[in-house]
């Protein structure tokens, strides 16, 4: 009866009103032989038990705010989250509301999502943003759906750079299983000396979409302007998977001509939370808005002449179109999108630039120091933001095991996804890493016996 506010005598009055004798009598429609199974679950915890047990479980982990120094990124980043963000998310008015189907009493959620859309459009430089997808990977998969629909299924090829996040590419493969669509471009083992323009060989008049990442999975920042021009000349759309923090410093994908800009909003004020929930942002040009999946909030006025907001273009959605809908999406990541909006509002123009600048400076300090250690070098000369690829003298797994003994969470082992990049570590550095931590990393690696 943990959260049930009905007393035994109230229950009996209610049963009498219904016209049955007992609670069990409400379930006669259920096949008798399967009715009331005995569930093999532990007995109920009290709130005190729960707090103690969950604290023990959480403490069985080593976290990156005290237990470990982290240089691990690869799609999820350890950034500072100002206190205000969680205070706003803990407002019951926000977190215990449903999808804003009744706009008169949901203007808080609706305006916040409208602001989220506006902030993401401002950050990516695109014209429109939807109300969010599950994460960066699923947002990228929805870009495939958009492009496929845009060409009415007449172009059936999607070209994916091998330097798009491996898990994002895996999700696209899962999503398109039933679609009779060809995914090309990332089959070959990625060569670090390859150039985005190598992908153009795959782009022909059957291609509906080309997907690249910015910075790419190895950390490199390319100006895709010429590349996007070349893809457009062949009639395909371009989707750029972008790191949102990097966009505070580097030119926008919109300014390079991208048609769709997606990514994961986790770096914008959302805890890593062992991988989720985060939020997938999806921004595009206005001309594609009718093909875009997901919810959209639009501005309007109410009967009193007040500026207000509603879910709009709902005719695209599953509850109206059913099997003809381009996507089955029902929820967005409402609360996480709100967190992102609060974070961006709070940091604003100068704060987000400072975060990006700190990431850039510290990552470059680390890259410089690490590449001076005997046996280590940078794998690329291209500009990078807060993540770079380090060539190591030994398998990354061995090095990381050693680092862990010193309380350091090493970078991502690229050999897991790219067999030719065994001994290549993807190192991430954010504003959370002090100079002292970076120096410790350099020191521990310098001491390793590389014989």
């Amino acid at each position, binding site marked *: 009866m943990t959260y049930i506010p*009905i007393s035994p005598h109230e229950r009996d009055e*209610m049963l009498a009103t*219904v016209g049955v004798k007992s609670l069990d009598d*409400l379930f006669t429609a*259920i096949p008798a032989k399967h009715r*009331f199974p005995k569930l*093999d*679950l532990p007995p*109920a915890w009290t709130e005190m038990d*729960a*707090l103690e047990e969950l*604290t023990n479980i*959480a403490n069985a982990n080593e976290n990156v705010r005290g237990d470990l120094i*982290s240089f691990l990124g690869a799609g999820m980043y350890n950034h500072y989250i*100002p206190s205000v963000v969680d*205070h706003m998310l803990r407002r019951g*008015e*926000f*977190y215990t509301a449903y*999808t804003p*189907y*009744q706009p*008169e009493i949901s203007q*808080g*959620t609706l305006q*916040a*999502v409208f602001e989220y859309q506006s902030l993401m459009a401002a*950050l990516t430089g695109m014209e429109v943003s939807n109300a969010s997808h*599950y994460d960066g*990977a699923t947002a990228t998969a929805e870009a495939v759906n958009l492009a496929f629909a845009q060409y009415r299924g007449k172009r059936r090829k999607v070209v994916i750079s091998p330097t798009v996040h491996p898990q994002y590419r895996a*999700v696209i493969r*899962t999503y398109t*299983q039933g679609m*009779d669509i060809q995914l090309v471009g990332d089959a070959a083992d990625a060569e670090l000396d390859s150039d985005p323009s190598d992908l153009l060989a795959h782009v022909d008049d059957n291609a509906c979409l080309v997907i690249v990442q910015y910075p790419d999975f190895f950390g490199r*920042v390319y100006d895709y302007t010429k590349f996007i021009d070349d893809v457009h000349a062949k009639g395909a759309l371009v989707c750029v998977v972008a790191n949102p923090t990097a966009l505070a410093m580097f*030119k926008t994908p919109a300014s390079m001509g991208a048609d769709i800009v997606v990514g994961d909003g986790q770096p914008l004020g959302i805890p890593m939370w*062992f*991988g989720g*929930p985060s939020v997938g942002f999806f921004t595009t040009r*206005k001309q594609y*808005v009718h093909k875009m999946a997901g919810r959209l909030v*639009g*501005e309007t006025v*109410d*009967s*009193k*002449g*007040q500026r207000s907001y509603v879910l*709009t273009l709902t005719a695209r959605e599953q509850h109206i179109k059913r099997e003809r*809908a381009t996507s*089955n999406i*029902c*929820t967005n990541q409402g*609360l996480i999108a709100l967190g992102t909006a609060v974070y961006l*509002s709070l940091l604003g*123009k*100068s704060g987000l630039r400072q975060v990006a600048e700190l990431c*850039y400076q510290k990552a470059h300090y680390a890259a410089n120091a690490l590449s001076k250690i005997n046996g280590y070098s940078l794998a690329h000369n291209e*500009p990078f933001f807060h993540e770079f690829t380090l060539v190591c003298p030994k398998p990354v797994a061995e090095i990381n095991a050693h680092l862990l003994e010193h309380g350091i969470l090493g970078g991502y082992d690229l050999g897991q996804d790219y067999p030719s990049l065994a001994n290549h570590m993807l190192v991430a550095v954010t*504003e959370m890493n002090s100079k002292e931590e970076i120096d410790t990393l350099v020191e521990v690696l310098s001491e390793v016996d590389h014989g």
Partner: protein
Amino acid sequence: MVSASSTTSSPLSATIVEPTIFDLSSRGRVGVRMPESDVPAAEPPPQHLLRPELPLPELAEVDVVRHYMRLSKFNYSVDGGFYPLGSCTMKYNPKINEDVCRLPGFLFTHPLQPIETVQGNLALMYQLQEWLKEIAGFAAVTLQPAAGAHGEFTGVLMMRAYHKSRGDDKRVKMLIPDAAHGTNPASVGMMGMTVVTIPSDERGNVDLKALEAACDDTVVGMMLTNPNTLGLFDENIEKVIALVHGCGGLMYGDGANLNALLGIVRPGDLGFDVMHFNLHKTFAVPHGGGGPGVGPVGVAARLADFLPEPLVGILEEGDEDKDMPPLYGYMKPAKSIGRMKAFHGHFGGGFVRSFTYIAMHGPDGLKDIAQYAVLNANYLQARLRDTYHIPFDRICMHEFVAEGQFEGSDVRALDISKRLMDYNFHPPTNYFPLIVHEALMIEPTETENKDTLDAFAETMIKIAEEAKTNSAIVKSAPNNTQFGRMDEVKAARELVLCCWLPENYDLSA
């Protein structure tokens, strides 16, 4: 200079109740002071790669807090009142869950950490998989899907993969009752399968004759919500499943309505082959104003090899005598359909809260949930039966559907819903399921007391009276709320989807 695109116009004549965060921006205000860099300055990136301006708002911390506080007050929420939104299970969200999901060990762990450093997280995920298997009667569970619709997509992909793995390539038809949620046909449409709609009979069950006629060797399976969206448990469920299995099809259960079945019946025992859970409905993960959801999927043994990767499993058994816990890690099912999203699913916001909720209920507490959810729905149905027509009137499960129209009155379901707002209630779900005229789908959940249910019933009866005697006040509702009815046509026609910094705002650093 920023040029306002056509998506950013603002109606000049409208009254502004709360400015947007962009309207509130003032050049030079700072919300957060970040530390100075503690490393020697690096060479800046090449100039041609740099972004010239960043058009984000500038506000102080107090500006941001007051803005979002004011916005929060425009929302109706479960913490604020009764939210009988059918099919959404808007139950109370326990506060302890908010605390435990924010423990630092959960908040600040990276999904790609070595397994030795995240044994707490993995143990919690493993245990939650086991509990969900036990609660719903399945052989295996994936926690990865991000929401109910995502879980459905996962389930349908597995059904497809199962048939293909047997060389059974001609199965393209998915059977879906006319009462189904829109996500069901949409999930199937994404896969290029065809939907065959199965009608309901006069008692709200699947029409067995129509089902039998549709069952042949081209059927992938059937997607059934049970209890269905009328709130009714299908009285012929065993026959329905036998028919689908008889033609080689698989049975998909939409777990949206699982709240009514906890400790009452296990879908796996009835013969369902695959089902998604909505942890944000049944297991009290807050709805967050539209997400994040959490949509694990349970499967029978014959589908276990097709689950998405990774699952959490035991890599090395523990030893209780030596007080040594098992070693948990990731496993890839043999014929996995692949990955549904990056990383492991909605761990912090979803798994931790649901785990805590299940642990705090235990087997008897879970049964209480279902029993009282069903009692509350039947009590409201009984109190409204004489006033509102209930087209499928029998003992319901956790929700029921009434008709929101009256002879001789022009009041419709939507008007009743809007009028409820004047009395400080959230409306029921409108116009769904599609098979009931002017549907009002009412799901009270188990976390409402009798006083609230009585007050709601009396208000509904009063509105019915108003519909006959003073319909204008119902048609114009809501009358007492901050915001009135919205011009949805204008929103769709003008399509203003973003706002921007004010014209002429100085963007220089």
